[in-house]
């Protein structure tokens, strides 16, 4: 799964948060299934060429939030999705939607026009 990860150190967002959000997206999007084995902190750090402390911070957060499970002496795995968990793909889209709406408003694009643009792109895919 390493090749699915990618961070941009020069974005203003902390690297650990970029990594955290990406892994959550992979889980919600189904690319990572329950019990899938995760690469070690060291492997991720080496692959992304970032400080292992940063990776370990992201992993710790994912463990605390119940996304992944740490097992003694064994690699971490993706935790089973709790059925009460309601994190949907849609809620992860929110920041992008916020950006899009802000930009549309700055450019004076009407809601109907924006919706039409989205619909057109959607149909073309």
């Amino acid at each position, binding site marked *: 799964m390493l090749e699915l990860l990618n961070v941009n*150190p*020069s974005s*203003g967002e902390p690297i650990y948060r970029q990594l955290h959000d990406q892994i959550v997206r992979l889980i919600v999007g189904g690319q990572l299934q329950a019990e899938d084995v995760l690469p070690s902190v060291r492997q991720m750090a080496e692959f992304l060429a970032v*400080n292992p402390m940063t990776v370990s*911070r992201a992993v710790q957060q994912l463990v605390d939030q119940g996304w992944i499970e740490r097992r003694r002496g064994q690699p971490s795995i993706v935790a089973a999705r709790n059925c009460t968990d309601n994190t949907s793909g849609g809620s992860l889209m929110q920041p992008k939607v916020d950006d899009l709406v802000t930009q549309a408003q700055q450019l004076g694009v009407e809601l109907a026009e924006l919706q039409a643009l989205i619909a057109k792109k959607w149909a073309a895919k």
Partner: protein
Amino acid sequence: MQQNEVPILAFNNVTKVFPLKGNKTTHTALDQLSMQLYPGMVVGLLGQNGAGKSTLMRCALGILTVDSGDIKTLNESPAVLSDTAKSRIGYVPQQPFGYEGFTVDRALDLHRSFYVDWDKQLEQEWLKRFELDVTQSVQKLSVGQRQSLALIMAMAYRPTLLILDEPVASLDPIARRKFMTDLFDLALESGSAVLFSSHITSDLERVASHVALIKKGKLVLFKEIDTLREQVKLLKVSVDSELPQHLDILHQTNTADSMLILADNCQSQEQFNGLISEQSLNLEQLFMELHR
């Protein structure tokens, strides 16, 4: 990074003044600077040319003496470092020198003899990785190769304190990345501390656990890099706005109808009267804003 540990390197109110040639004025290279490096820290030192980065490093090594304040290098005074302490420090200056007239392997033979903890296997690995020809004469190496050799000479004994002055400027991107992984290994596995300066902010963003920003000899910021990204923001505010008390203003630029404020200690989603916009910054942007 437990604060009850003994720091590997500690600056306490350090001031260093250089006399300027020809007239009676002086130049303050370090101005009441305090900073502590603990095991596991990789500290990226950022500052303009002439901000005091190299001076700071030379003072830590005892190459320069300070005018006031004190420094503890491996818990000793840098002016009178013991042999044991010296054998636990690695240093790569901006322009590596020495071993002119030696071939690479003879230079390494001699250098190795000074260090009991030298790891021959590590040395061989790195020679291979940097593709250094050991029969080549040191004088004939390119700038990048010379730098690679200096890195091997400073790191093959896994020093407790590693000080690197612009270490990777002449290395190609692939060599730089691999070198960074080595830095982590050293810092985390051997519990060492690394202090390095670089103008390549994207490298710094990857490798550093902490960033120290120096401006005109003063330490402006010293923070964990993730915290820095979350707490240092560029705020655009109206001229009559009232800034919250907790903000620490690093720099301020006034324009006709608003002010740009570079502030530390921001909370997530600041909200106060007169705030027009808030922007996160990467290191390069932060650096530019600070020197506007």
